[in-house]
């Protein structure tokens, strides 16, 4: 990455690296400097955070209890 300011397009591509705390310090500083002066990128970052939060409310898929029998049998066999 060069020394010049990040564009909004570059900001969008870096947003996950930023949220994952995976940007090297100079890049994180540039990211935050851009963010401080750019309403659009602020909104985009918030949209990503909202997306993550809403995704986090989805249910983990649980396996139906009725289909466990075979595995429980195997578990008994393993113990036996």
């Amino acid at each position, binding site marked *: 990455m060069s020394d010049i300011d990040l564009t909004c397009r570059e900001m969008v591509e870096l947003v*996950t690296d930023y949220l994952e705390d995976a940007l090297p310090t100079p890049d994180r500083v540039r990211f935050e400097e851009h963010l401080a002066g750019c309403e659009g990128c602020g909104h985009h970052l918030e*949209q990503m955070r909202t997306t*993550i939060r809403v995704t986090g409310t989805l249910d983990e898929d*649980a396996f139906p209890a009725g289909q466990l029998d075979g595995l429980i049998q195997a578990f008994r066999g393993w113990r036996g």
Partner: protein
Amino acid sequence: MTTGTTLASAEDLALVERLKAGDETAFAMLVRQHQAQMLRVARMYVSSQAVAEDVVADAWLGILQGLDRFEGRSSLRTWMYRILTNIAKTRGQREGRSVPFSSLAGDDLDAAVDESWFQGSGDRWPGGWASLPDDWRGIPDDRLLSAEVRALIGAAIADLPPMQAEVLRLRDVRGWSSAEVRNALDISETNQRVLLHRARSKVRRALEHYLEKDRP
């Protein structure tokens, strides 16, 4: 930067002891929690759902047989999925089904960015927003967390290339750490992040499309 692994928790170690003691309730709970997710992970590497079921059954056996060797240097679930991934990959190879990583991961054609969002080289601010993204902070939770929105996100995840979908499910639905997902799926830290980025970007776009479709 986080590169370390997640160690087994006290609950993990207690659960391992219960399993070793033959506690069926503990085993049933673990299977209920993971079976559906494990089937999807296995299915990425093998030719059919039936073979995936076979692989997962083998993985449970491998997990039980390996419990004595579990040393708690990773979380229990990471260790379990690593066993699963290894068995699934081996089985896929034996089936003569070598799945290129790119077909699981999705290729660069489905990039996270839509060029139309940004000004072009002839515009005043090349690479700047063509029109500003909406501010979602004012959207009430009862709209964001409605059954309709959750169904829409579920559908958007189901449409993702398989590896993107599983990374997103493990990270954002199940709340695993990046180190756990990387170890469980046997992918590099960078790949994990790229997959997560593409997946989240597409889910964001699906949500944007929905939220802004009846914008004034």
